């Protein structure tokens, strides 16, 4: 087999290795993850199907036409997101295991933080996709006027989903080499997510019923934003230590 000679010499090739910005590195990883997920849609389909099943099951547990059920709408919705989202989040780093892809990613000249940010962004997009399909289904099943406060609801959805994503992605990285990964994750992830879930539930319930964001709900918005910022910072700071053995 004819192989063209390797170009140039090692010495004359470069002076300064090219440096990608943090954002470019993250977007490269995120688009890689999205592309390979969209090609098989394994996690996405499973997550969406699971979400539908839980929505259906809730209607047996809580009378779907009753007024009381609508008063816990936010809680129901976020439980669906947390359970269905876990199917996507758990796979985030596990998808790097076949063929030892994780080694190649960690060895590449991108920072662990950028790798984490890229994966979290991809997860955010996938989770948001599942949520945006669930919302109208929920609206139909439980007869709630969820479109009336559309943009505030989207803001809460974004902040809440980022909270779940940061914790889920970080624990996916932590447990990537564990045989019992799937068994460990729910026990670790859900209790830690409680403040984010609680805040998101408190905010979503009035919004989804068409009521505006009142002043007494603002502390919850702050709490949610604080949760996101604190754990994003913590994850970005620690993920390099986690990935380099």
């Amino acid at each position, binding site marked *: 087999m004819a192989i063209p000679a390797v170009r140039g010499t090692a010495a004359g090739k470069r002076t300064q290795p090219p440096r990608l910005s943090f954002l470019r590195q993250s977007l490269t990883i995120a688009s890689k993850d999205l592309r390979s997920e969209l090609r098989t849609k394994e996690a996405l389909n499973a997550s969406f199907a699971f979400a539908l099943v839980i929505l259906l099951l809730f209607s047996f547990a809580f009378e779907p036409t009753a007024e009381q059920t609508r008063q816990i709408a936010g809680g129901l919705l976020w439980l669906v997101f947390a359970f269905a989202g876990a199917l996507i989040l758990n796979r985030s780093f596990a998808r790097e295991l076949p063929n030892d892809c994780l080694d190649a990613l960690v060895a590449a000249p991108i920072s662990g933080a950028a790798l984490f940010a890229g994966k979290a962004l991809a997860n955010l997009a996938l989770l948001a996709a599942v949520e945006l399909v669930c919302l109208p289904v929920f609206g139909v099943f439980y007869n709630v006027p969820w479109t009336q406060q559309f943009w505030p609801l989207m803001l809460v959805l974004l902040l809440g989903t980022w909270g779940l994503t940061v914790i889920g992605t970080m624990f996916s990285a932590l447990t990537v080499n564990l045989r*019992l990964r799937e068994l460990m994750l729910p026990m*670790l992830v859900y*209790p830690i997510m409680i*403040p984010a879930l609680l805040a998101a539930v408190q905010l979503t319930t009035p919004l989804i019923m068409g009521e505006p964001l009142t002043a007494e709900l603002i*502390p919850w918005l702050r709490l949610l934003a604080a949760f996101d910022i604190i754990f994003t910072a913590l994850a970005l700071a620690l993920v390099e230590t*986690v990935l380099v053995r």
Partner: protein
Amino acid sequence: MRTKLMIAMAGIAALLLARNLYVILLELPDEAAQGAIYRIIFFHVPAAWTAFLCFFAAMIASILYLVKKDLRHDAFAASATEVGLAFGAANLISGMIWARIIWGIWWTWDPRLTSMLVGWLIYAGYLMLRRAIEDPTERAKIAAVVSIFAFVDVPIIFFSIKWWRTQHPQPVVWAGGQMDPAMYNMLFMNWIPFLLLGAVLVMIRMNQERAQREIDAMRRYAHAM
């Protein structure tokens, strides 16, 4: 030397506890509103403080491990977390018994008790995770990160649950507002034997961790032969 220190500490703890029990049961009067059952608070509250201190110490040790990579810090973090879980369980159970007598229900979704339950679950997950990792160095690193995440989460959990519960009617704990100084001091007096007991338990667990590390290293030596 270390064993002697442990025995001495355990002995002091036992003496103090006996003296405190005498005062709590025989000298202090019944509380006006609650009657005799209020005495459980002398165990309930110090247990919570001790558990909290254990989790805090575990986080500090975890940070130290990540900085220094010394497995003794990891052993301390694991031991303190286990002891913290034991005191946390004592806090939860005594709180439930008290609630059952005073309010007639086992669980009232009190913010502090509920936060303790959430924290307890997180740290139980931490111990489960430790058990699932074979390589001691990898286990130490991952556990340290989880411990930091857990302790940072504890205040956020507390405030979120507190806000959540203030939207609902709150059960009143002390009808008369201030606690009697003699009773208040007793909380701290009884905290001392709790702390000593906690320290002794952590030391025992750390010895076991060290032995475990030695056994593990010997097994690896044997496999390498």
